[in-house]
């Protein structure tokens, strides 16, 4: 199979989670030729991407990347090269480009693929979650025509970079002058402390926390455990904490060693973002809260009272 993997590095740092694509390709267990088209990023790292061919599209780091330019560039690249499978992963640009490319080129599209099942002469089969992760579906598509998929974040282990460097072909970014818009300003909101994506420990608060003041305790515990602060949609909508800390289907998808939740009931929308955490510990007053079904340890208690005790105990130990 001829595979195209699409990698976007909007910032100059290399987006390591893109390496999940290559573990997914390994699971397909078939003879492949992999081409990676890489937008932006550090060339010395890009040369080590585990692919047969690497096509690099340099980006101007002072100008915000317009998804329509990426879309047009991939579309043009596909005019000259034929692929059986085009793989994206989850990021702002790919979320925009992957469905649009599917319609532009009339190629079927499957988002959030979490598992490959089988491929024969007729059908390609995959699993993807539906209904906010509360159910799953086995999807099939015609295997004799090309397919675009976007893999579900954190469903595959990132593969290691190659030791040796591959040659890189460079092409330029096509500017879409027809069907586009102009980005005039980008404001990044950098939260204080450890970033959610990188954190080994995440302390998350939900509706049960009840107030902005309650989140001060979450922040205190996060700082004691050298972790980051997370939140459910209820907490973000109540403006107790910034949107950047949202964990869930429409927020961050994380897989820390410890995910410690206070007052989160475990709606499927939230679970989508944290279900791959290695240890989930949940505190909730409701013994039937669905978060307990996914937790290693559960504590039935008032979350505000319990967090105070945890902080006290931690201070005693340390």
């Amino acid at each position: 199979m001829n595979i195209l993997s699409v990698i976007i590095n909007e910032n100059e740092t290399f987006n390591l989670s893109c390496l999940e694509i290559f573990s997914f390709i390994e699971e397909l267990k078939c003879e492949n030729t992999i081409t990676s088209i890489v937008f932006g990023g550090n060339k010395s790292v890009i040369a080590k991407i585990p692919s047969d061919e690497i096509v690099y599209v340099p980006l101007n780091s002072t100008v915000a990347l317009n998804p329509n330019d990426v879309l047009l560039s991939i579309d043009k690249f596909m005019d000259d090269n034929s692929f059986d499978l085009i793989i994206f992963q989850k990021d702002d640009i790919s979320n925009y480009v992957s469905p649009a490319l599917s319609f532009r080129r009339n190629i079927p599209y499957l988002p959030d693929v979490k598992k490959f099942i089988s491929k024969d002469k007729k059908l390609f089969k995959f699993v993807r979650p539906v209904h906010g992760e509360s159910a799953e579906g086995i999807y099939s598509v015609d295997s004799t025509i090309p397919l675009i998929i976007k893999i579900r974040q954190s469903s595959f282990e990132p593969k290691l970079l190659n030791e040796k460097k591959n040659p890189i072909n460079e092409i330029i970014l096509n500017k879409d002058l027809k069907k586009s818009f102009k980005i005039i300003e980008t404001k990044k909101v950098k939260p204080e402390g450890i970033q959610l994506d990188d954190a080994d420990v995440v302390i998350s608060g939900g509706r049960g926390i009840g107030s902005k003041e309650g989140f001060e305790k979450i922040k205190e515990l996060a700082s004691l455990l050298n972790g980051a602060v997370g939140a459910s949609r209820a907490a973000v909508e109540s403006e107790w904490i910034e949107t950047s800390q949202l964990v869930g289907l429409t927020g961050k998808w994380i897989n820390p060693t410890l995910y410690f939740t206070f007052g989160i009931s475990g709606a499927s929308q939230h679970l989508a973002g944290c279900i791959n955490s290695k240890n989930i510990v949940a505190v909730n007053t409701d013994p039937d809260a669905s978060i307990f079904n996914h937790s290693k340890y559960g504590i039935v208690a008032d979350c505000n009272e319990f967090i105070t005790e945890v902080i006290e105990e931690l201070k005693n130990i340390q």
Partner: protein
Amino acid sequence: MKICVCIKEVPDSDVPSNKLRIDQENKKIIPIENISRIVNGFDLNAVELALRFSENYEDTSISIISVGDNLTSDVIKKPLAMGADEIITCEDPIIENLDIYGISFVLSKIIEKTGPYDIIFCGRHASDFDNASVPFGISEILSIPLINIVKNITSKGKKLLIDRVITDGFQTIESELPLIITTGNQVGDPRYPTLKGIMEASKKEINKITFNELGILESTIAPKVQIEKLYFPENENKVEIIEGNNNKEKAFNLLSKLKEEGVI
């Protein structure tokens, strides 16, 4: 200013999964009895943003468009009760089995037939199948630019300034019309319908377009993607409830375990 908002009727997404069942024959997830159906949450955010935006213009109309089969009129009329002007539907058993390509095609045809619209609003994704694709389909089929996950829109002469939400912040975008806008919960809570709104909405007729009127050949919308099977994943997890006489003891017991296992 002529605006439309595409909405989808879905099972209530806040329902826990033990209140859902799977209709294997029709490949649908259905809530067990007495669980309400709702307008997809992000679509109501789209209605809210459309209403807010239209308040800046004297001569605006907001049309709601919804397609499916056996739509619940009380549910899909909610945007009218919030303040939208009319609702256009297309109901047919064929539509029920379409994939994202078919649905995008049907919506695009309705938009062409009843438009042109200056802005087409859509929710960022529907909470039943989470495809987040149909607005992009309309954008490609009708060749109208799309800006996704928009929080706010303001006018700047003949152009618009649009606040778009990105993972770690915001972008300001300048664009001309026509435009497709998708929205998420960053728009803020949709307004509650007023009693007067509900009364007026109940009196309004639904403008029904039949599938045949759209002149779509069934072969052009044959599904490209099939659902073979839906199921609830088995949960083998067994939670250990940390016991203790009081919270202090529970906290101590929990931290001891986490320390022992090297988690903290």
